[in-house]
């Protein structure tokens, strides 16, 4: 049979890493093919090669049986390949239509025909039954919508083979379902789809075939019907992974954190509308909601990175509303920021330097109050690297050289290592592979079991339900209700996340 895509003996070296090592992979036309693997396994690299963004050092690519040599993305696009990247490739200042037609703009004479662009994009959308408003600015639409714009982009270019790199990492459950629906329709329309994801449930949901990469090597390709999640996990990580190590110890009654009437507005928009919450010692409180419902802002307000426009934050019976980030750190509030590369780490610092970031003024890292105690910093870093299983050649390596999962571990190691009482974790496992997810989950649970408290933001309901004692659901900056995770169902939470409040089922507010 003729495969839509065949990649033979693909090898790609980067400075200091062999990202792809003689990978052979074949993808049948008209199927959904999942590619899975740990962080840094080489999935994105392989796909970038297929899309012409990187040139392989060795190997060849066949599209529909024809050998191809791609010099750039243009060549791949001309071959009918489209790609939706891990990070959205959209310019927020411009409209959806502008973004979609980029590179293949409709013209009127010498000029760019913006009207025709909008019409054409609208036509593509309606043909594939995808809901987007082509005239809107990208900055004004939701992440789920942006995802759809990315898919429309590939369709507009007439892609027959569509690659999606971690398309669900930032989507809500509802949006993920929508995406699944779109993918099914595309498949019915005869398109071939390649999808990279870390979420194995989705793999089982969406795909026909599954390929597993590990350490740059192709490990196996399986039919979905002939495999299951534990086997995939084993193939990916090389061992069994136990997710859901939840301990059933009851949360304490002492208040760790009390938020009263928190209001936050930015750029003339009400982002948080009078939120009141209580978090106890020894408790994990999950914040659920569609991305952009305000839960991230709430987390950042507790961490002190954002200043609320109104309301008060009381921590261990002390009002800390006006306190700075540094003061809160001193008082024992740890923060795992959502964007590790932008907010969590100084990418050009070494691991050791990053491990004291924010704690550099602690007496144990400081000599004579003004100098860095490098000995202490280094020995401490070595200890943490062992303790948190950060995979690195040494503590002097720059964090930018680590894989996403290991970078996340550095952030977690730092915040947890500072012995916080309250940890604010904003999507701590985003884009991280199963092995690392397991480690991070265990760290958070252990913290809770030792009497610490956790404020956990996550877009993944499973994660929230697994880790949290209670779940607070947000919609459009409002608190829809707080549920006990032992009794709450996915459906309940899902409904509240899209705005229908469940009268009477609200958990105790304090």
């Amino acid at each position: 049979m003729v495969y839509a895509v065949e990649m033979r003996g693909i090898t790609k070296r980067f400075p200091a890493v062999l990202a792809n090592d003689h990978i052979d992979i074949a993808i049948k036309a008209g199927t959904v093919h999942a590619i899975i693997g740990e962080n840094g396994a080489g999935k994105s690299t392989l796909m970038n090669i297929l899309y012409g963004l990187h040139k392989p050092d060795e190997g060849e690519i066949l599209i529909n049986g024809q050998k191809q040599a791609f010099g750039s993305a243009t060549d791949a696009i001309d071959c009918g390949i489209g790609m939706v990247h891990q990070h959205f490739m959209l310019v927020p200042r411009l409209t959806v239509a502008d973004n979609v037609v980029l590179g293949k703009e409709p013209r009127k004479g010498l000029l760019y025909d913006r009207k025709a662009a909008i019409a054409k994009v609208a036509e593509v959308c309606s043909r594939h039954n995808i809901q987007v408003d082509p005239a809107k600015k990208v900055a004004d639409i939701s992440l789920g919508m942006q995802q759809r714009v990315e898919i429309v982009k590939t369709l507009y270019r007439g892609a027959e083979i569509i690659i999606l790199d971690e398309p669900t990492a930032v989507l809500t459950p509802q949006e993920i379902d929508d995406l699944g629906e779109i993918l099914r329709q595309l498949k019915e329309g005869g398109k071939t789809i390649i999808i990279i994801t870390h979420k194995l449930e989705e793999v089982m949901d969406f795909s026909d075939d599954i390929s597993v990469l590990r350490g740059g090597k192709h490990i196996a390709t399986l039919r979905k019907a002939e495999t299951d999640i534990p086997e995939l996990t084993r193939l990916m990580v090389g061992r069994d992974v136990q997710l859901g190590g939840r301990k059933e110890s009851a949360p304490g009654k002492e208040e760790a954190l009390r938020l009263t009437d928190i209001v936050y507005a930015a750029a003339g928009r009400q982002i948080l509308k009078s939120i009141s919450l209580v978090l106890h010692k020894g408790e994990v409180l999950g914040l659920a909601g569609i991305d952009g419902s305000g839960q991230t802002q709430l987390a950042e307000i507790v961490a002190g990175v954002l200043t609320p426009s109104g309301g008060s934050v009381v921590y261990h019976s002390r009002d800390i509303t006006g306190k700075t980030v540094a003061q809160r750190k001193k008082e024992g509030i740890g923060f795992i920021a959502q964007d590790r590369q932008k907010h969590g780490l100084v990418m050009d610092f070494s691991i050791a330097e990053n491990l004291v970031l924010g704690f550099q003024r602690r007496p144990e890292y400081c000599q004579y109050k003004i100098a860095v105690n490098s000995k202490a910093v280094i020995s401490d870093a070595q200890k943490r690297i062992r303790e948190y299983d950060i995979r690195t050649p040494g503590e002097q390596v720059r964090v930018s050289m680590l894989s996403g999962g290991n970078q996340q571990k550095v952030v977690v190691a730092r915040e947890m290592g500072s012995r916080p009482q309250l940890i604010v974790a904003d999507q701590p496992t985003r884009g991280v592979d199963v092995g690392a997810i397991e480690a991070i989950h265990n760290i958070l649970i252990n913290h809770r079991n030792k009497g610490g408290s956790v404020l956990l933001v996550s877009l993944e309901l499973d994660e929230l339900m697994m880790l949290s004692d209670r779940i607070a659901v947000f919609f459009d900056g409002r608190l829809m209700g707080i549920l006990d995770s032992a009794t709450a169902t996915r459906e309940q939470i899902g409904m509240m996340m899209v705005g229908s409040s469940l009268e009477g089922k609200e958990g105790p507010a304090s």
Partner: protein
Amino acid sequence: MTVSFFVVLLLSVIRLSTPMFIAGLGNMYCERVGILNLGAEGMMVSGAFAAVLGSYYTGNPWIGVFCGMVGGLVAGALHALICVEFGGLHAISGLGITMLFNGVTKFLCLSIFGSTFTPNVAALQTTKILQGVPVLGKYLGALSPLVYLGGLIAVISYFVIFRTPYGLRVQMVGDDPRTVETAGINVWKMRYSGVLICGLLCGIAGAYMSLGQLDRFFEGMIAGKGMLAVIAVKMGKWEPKGILGTALLLGFFDAVQLQLQINGIIGIPPEMLQLLPYVAGIAVLSLQTGATRLAALDTQYLRNKYKF
């Protein structure tokens, strides 16, 4: 204060701001593709000198302007090579280009003409055809055709940036080159084109200074106009309108400053008047709101270097 006084002042403003806005428009292309250009001064020097050489050897000032464009282009190409190809540091490359071309032109001028300035050559100081226009002809004709060319470039630039596919791509490259690359567009070609257009326009601006305002090249004649172009493009928020406005504003304060000196506002030392345009610039800046930024400005973008 007669009408003619205002006209003289207005013409002064136009002449003083013309090089700033032509070079500023050039810089707009350059910055919009993400390359900072502190070398506008050097590109203008190169253009000014090449223009005079062209006019000197052919006797035709328009060929001179063409040579000026080539001169600017050469400097622009160097900047492009360093910043686009080698991923060099934009600010340093720009300063280096200014220093290099100041040296090279002075050096060539001395070797060819034995003096720090050239003999006079056929120039473009007035627009003959406009002198026939009734009433205004006297004033319109007194401006160099390059002033009108500059105006034309501004209008064309407006359309190029906001109304053409090329402009759409330019806008995007300045914001996010990775997005543009994934759309199958050659980011490096885009970046080259922006820097080269900049070189070209700076060349014209230089040619205006040597052939449109004067009729020869002098060492040091650009006298900081290139740096003012850098200022104009940022204050003008990367839009032709804004650049034109900023250039006219700085030109206006400069012309006013000269006028104040002539009319002997007693007691104000000339140096304090001379810094008026710059103080005005800072004042205007501090009143500006909403700092727009080009996200990708002054960043390197190298082949095969990015994770998508």
